[in-house]
């Protein structure tokens, strides 16, 4: 059963298994285990970014192409749901319409970008996606009649998901079940299903071809696989998953704007998550996203206390300033690319008895 659910791609490491179980249980019980709105926010972000990082890993880790347009598709998904709800009012049909609209915009765009630029070297694809993504971000902030410009759009979600909604005064373990908690579970299960689907895809024959392309595109082509087509499909698939994750994020935030969906810093965050967690394995996305979001939200407190105790040493204190957490993750990122290209998961999976010659 479990093997089937995980598409026969088991964690293959006790510690990794343990970590994954802890994360999944933590997320599944987040509203009750860690009450409070900040903790719930963090849990939602982790769920959504797991999908986002996993779908990016399909591109980066499995197919070996670097895209900087992943937040573009994430943003399109979020704007699809957001604008639909803003224009047509809150109802489930509109939510569905928003998701469909987001996908209908994201997937063809991904196909076009892929067909145009995946024929050539990976480096050109990276440059072109960067240019397209930044043009799109500017477009979204300038078409203010439609997207709300820099301020974005606030909108209402269906009633069940609103914070004021009470499930008949039901309370579990001392926590009142309200619309927020229902939204949380909608997003949690949505993310879980998306993740399992992605896991299924990368372990399918299609996923094997993607890995073959990553390892040696010439040989893959020689074996009769059209690499352009496969890469383009991988790009479209990743775009699809990202758009769905974006839609879920919009439902949670009840707001869409360029900063929360399209900004380049989110792209960097995803890149860091995937590389630190481990490229080429979707479990890396889980670890990377969890670690990153936790660091983003809680590392700052720790660094704040270090910084406070070092006030007398000017430069060191500045480096440990709470806002500099990204500096440390950036350094960790560079070190990961050098020394553990397979990230945390690759480290954990390595058999300690087998001495590998580097």
């Amino acid at each position, binding site marked *: 059963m479990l093997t089937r659910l995980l598409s026969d791609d088991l964690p293959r490491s006790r510690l990794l298994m343990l970590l994954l179980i802890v994360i999944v249980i933590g997320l599944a019980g987040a509203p009750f285990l860690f009450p409070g709105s900040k903790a719930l926010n963090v849990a939602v972000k982790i769920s959504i970014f797991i999908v986002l990082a996993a779908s990016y890993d399909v591109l980066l880790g499995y197919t070996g192409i670097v895209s900087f347009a992943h937040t573009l598709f994430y943003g399109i998904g979020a704007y699809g749901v957001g604008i639909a709800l803003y224009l047509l009012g809150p109802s489930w049909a509109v939510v569905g319409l928003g998701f469909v609209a987001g996908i209908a915009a994201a997937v063809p765009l991904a196909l076009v970008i892929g067909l145009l630029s995946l024929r050539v070297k990976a480096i050109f694809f990276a440059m072109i996606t960067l240019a397209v993504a*930044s043009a799109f971000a500017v477009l979204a902030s300038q078409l203010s009649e439609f997207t709300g410009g820099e301020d974005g759009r606030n909108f209402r979600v269906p009633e069940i998901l609103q914070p004021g909604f009470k499930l008949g005064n039901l309370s579990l373990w001392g926590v009142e079940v309200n619309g927020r908690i229902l939204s949380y579970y909608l997003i949690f299960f949505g993310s879980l299903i998306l993740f399992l689907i992605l896991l299924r895809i990368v372990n399918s024959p299609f996923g094997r071809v993607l890995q073959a392309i990553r390892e040696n595109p010439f040989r893959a082509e020689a074996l009769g696989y059209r690499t352009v087509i496969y890469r383009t499909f991988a790009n479209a698939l990743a775009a699809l998953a990202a758009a769905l994750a974006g839609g879920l994020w919009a439902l949670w935030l009840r707001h869409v704007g360029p900063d929360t969906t399209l900004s380049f810093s989110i792209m960097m965050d995803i890149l860091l998550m995937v590389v630190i967690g481990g490229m080429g394995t979707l479990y890396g996305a889980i670890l990377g996203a969890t670690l990153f979001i936790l660091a983003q939200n809680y590392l700052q407190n720790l660094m704040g206390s270090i910084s406070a105790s070092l006030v007398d040493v000017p430069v060191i204190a*500045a480096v440990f300033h709470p806002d500099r957490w*990204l500096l440390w993750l950036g350094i960790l990122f560079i070190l990961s690319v050098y020394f553990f290209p397979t990230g945390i998961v690759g480290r954990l999976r390595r058999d300690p008895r087998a001495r590998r010659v580097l």
Partner: protein
Amino acid sequence: MTENASIREESATALPALRRDWVPIVLPVGLALLSLPLIGNGATWATLTFAGIAMGMMIFLMASGLTLVFGLMDVLNFGHGAFIAVGAYAAAAVLLRLSDWTGADTMLLNLAAVGIAALAAMAVTGVLGLVFERVLIRPVYGQHLKQILITMGGFIVAEQILHAIFGPVPISLPLPTAFRGSLNFGEVTIEKFRLGAMGVGFVVFVAMAVILTRTKIGLLVRAGVENPEMVEALGYKVRRLFVMVFVAGSTLAGLGGSLWALYRETVTAAMGMEIIVLVFIVIIVGGLGSVGGCFIGSLLVALLANYAGFWRQRWRWFLIFY
């Protein structure tokens, strides 16, 4: 032998000269001329064209190093934007300390202050380029995926260090007195600073062209772009050449960054990322590895940006970099 082919002393058989390809040179000129009727007003057109050329020169400064580095070693430095930002900050730090000089009403002191700031920016980014090449790029030669990731990582770290040193608030950088305002020729307005930036850009372009076509090092660089293995086989160390070009490219990025900072009159750590997109567009349009193409590409993009900004206010999204 054809009559017009000049016969050099050392070569017994002369090669017929390559036919000059005029199309790239005609492109920006054509774009400028074509847009004249679309703008209608000659004075406005001249103002816009001039502003575009000045902007193009600054973009060229920032982009030329990147394209050469790519051509020579197949290395695309996604962290190039960090050099631009670092150059801008270094220049701003120097200029703000020399506020007596920049505020003075004498051209000479103003020029000296800007010159010192630009030199400081170039020195800092040159050293940074050396470190970047050694620490980040050398271990991942020939591996594109890792190169992109590593240089992006370097970019993040550099940006964060800038934040740590200068704080997250944008620094405003007033222009020195002598560069404020504009010159008026009839209805044509030319900002003084743009005139200066254009001069610097043009001098650098000419210097680069001369070095690349008239010196031995330039010959080696061009040969390296064409066929690095062959140059290695002839006994030259392409790698050393590459480090040199990389550092030169970084200093140029620093120079461009300092000019850009003065042009925008504010400095933010995010500016590197904003400009790198423009730089990528320019070097792709110009053809990766070609300095002349980069020059033409910069002019095209900058002219187009200026005209488009005039044509329609709603096209502001095209002009975010402007």
